[in-house]
């Protein structure tokens, strides 16, 4: 008798409601919208409240006074795909959120790169290598 719970639910016509709720409960996206909200709600966890970075056994780079921010594509790609210790956030932020936070750091903390950067430009940077929705964040251990 091999009948899984999944099959039982499918038989009862219940599966359609499942994945959506499961996603709401366990996965999710960041709710912060403006660049300021996103930086201080998320990014400062590592890059620190004044974007000065931090040093321990390893280091988080400062975003303050950072010439790597001259081209908006660079920070956008790092946010989307990750780089070394920097996690990939492509599946947790929308294009608009990424454009907003890139705009924010490029015009704060001693950075003065006011050129516009749009959600459409972020969308164009998303590649098949960007993280998929399926893998998700860490599970409990």
């Amino acid at each position, binding site marked *: *008798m091999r*009948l899984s*719970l999944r*099959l*039982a*639910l499918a*038989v*009862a016509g*219940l599966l359609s*409601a499942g994945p959506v*709720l*499961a996603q*709401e*409960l*366990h*996965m*999710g*996206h*960041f709710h912060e919208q403006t660049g300021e909200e996103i930086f*201080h*709600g*998320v*990014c*400062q*966890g*590592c890059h*620190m*409240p004044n974007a000065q970075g*931090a*040093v*321990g*056994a*390893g*280091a*988080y780079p400062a975003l303050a006074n950072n010439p790597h921010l001259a081209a908006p594509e660079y920070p956008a790609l790092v946010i989307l795909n*990750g780089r*070394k*210790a*920097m*996690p*990939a956030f492509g599946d*947790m932020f929308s294009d608009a959120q990424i454009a907003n936070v890139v705009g924010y750091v490029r015009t704060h903390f001693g950075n003065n790169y006011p050129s516009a950067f749009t959600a459409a430009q972020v969308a164009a940077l998303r590649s098949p290598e960007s*993280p998929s929705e399926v*893998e*998700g*964040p*860490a*599970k*409990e*251990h």
Partner: protein
Amino acid sequence: MSEDGVSAGGGKMRRRDLLTLIGTVAGSAVMYRAMSAMALAGESGFTGPIKLEGDPKGASVLILGAGMAGMCAAYELRKAGYKVQILEYNDRPGGRNWSLYGGDTYTELGGFTQKVEFDKGLYLNPGPWRLPYHHQAILHYCKVLNVALEPFVQVNYAAYVHSTKAFGGKPKRYREVHADFNGYVAELLAKSTQQGRLDQAVTREDQEILLEAMREWGALDKNYEYRKGLLASERRGYVSDPGGGTTSAPIPSDPMAMSDLLKSGLWGSISAGHIYEFQNTIFQPKGGMGMIGKAFGRELEGVIAYDSKVIDIHQDAKGVTATYVNAKTGGPPRKAQADYCICTIPASILGQIPMNVGDAMQSAIQALYYDASIKVGLQFKRRFWEQDESIYGGISFTDQPNGMIGYPATDYFSDGKGVLLGAYTFGPAAFEYAAMSPQERVAKTVEYGANVHPQYRDEFENGVAVAWHRVPWTLGCAAHWTEALRAEHYDNLVAMDGRIMLAGEHASRLPAWQEGALLSSLDAIRRLHQRVMTS
């Protein structure tokens, strides 16, 4: 269909025969699980204490990192006759095997310092907190090191499952959701079976077995319905429990409406205990997970150079040299040299340290970032979860950012204070927690928890919060592996590069588990020893 018999494939099968058949089926299932478990134990790498036979003739090994992998390697290699030394960034052994006690001070990146104010004997395990029964390597070392273990409670039917968006934000007991969900699913399956809708999938004979199974599994009545009554209350609990004497009649409780239950999403929180790692029996060290690291550290006294921050790793034809400075005071660089190196530094840190290994290993190191996770410990004036709510150990789940509330599986019925795990979460919520100051994290955790336990408001005293992306020596909780990353990089990460081999949870197929760190270490030293014996 009569009471004492069910039809089977056109004939009649007596209930006793049917139950005998189910018993036989269950018996073989149990047997099958046992057999596959044995096979798995063989595959996972721990086949008993490691034996490194033969004389290494004074060969030396430099080990970087005094976590589980590093200390296991040092312990076993020294026993086999190697000269070993460990460089460790922290001023204590254990790495992520770590407990915070009252009086401890912890400073995270950014300089945010917390002084732990817990009462004597109370603790938070910021990292690992449970040892599954099939993680035989870590259990082996607990035994060898005389680390006393006690049961960890994973599933507690009296704990809560909670959604702010369901049932007016009032938590439900795990047993209520579990019983109602199983009951309704069983009833639906039974109905579908009776209406002939499973004729394509299940033979007539098996349908009869299925019906009986659903009745037992779901606590269905004789009409295959899940409804209010003593039968359902034996699973979900009562309004008033059966008692003695004159006031003894039990009052059954009302199951939730099926639609409410489904829409609540609470069913998403009742399956964690089915996961292999979370099945009974699970253990925890008495007095905190950090007891294992401390015991290893005592065993390796004199071998570990603490406060050593590695800044360069270089190998040549003769050996491996690590350059390091004092992690607290800096000062002039010093060098440690050996014939070989087992490097257990997390990939998130190692990717920033110059090391002359090949592109394949270097790419693998650079490809791994570390996942987000946080833990918050909260001290309360009394153990209200036991005293008011009969919750003894286990975990409540909530849809709020704190994710879980873990109850201490030790010191039950103590009149003193107690420390709850007030938050344990991942993904976006964990990144957001990391962005807060430690004080904000604690305050938020109290706010969330009060929606499950209103007692929080009066009983809370103090707390400590560890956000793993702010931990100076890991930059995250554990390596983030995906299927694609494994396919591209795993073999290159674990291969020996000249005289250097990596070990740790990141170099295992059990990421984030101490078992993974140990199995990785044992496999690395086995291969290292083979190389030494044949060269």
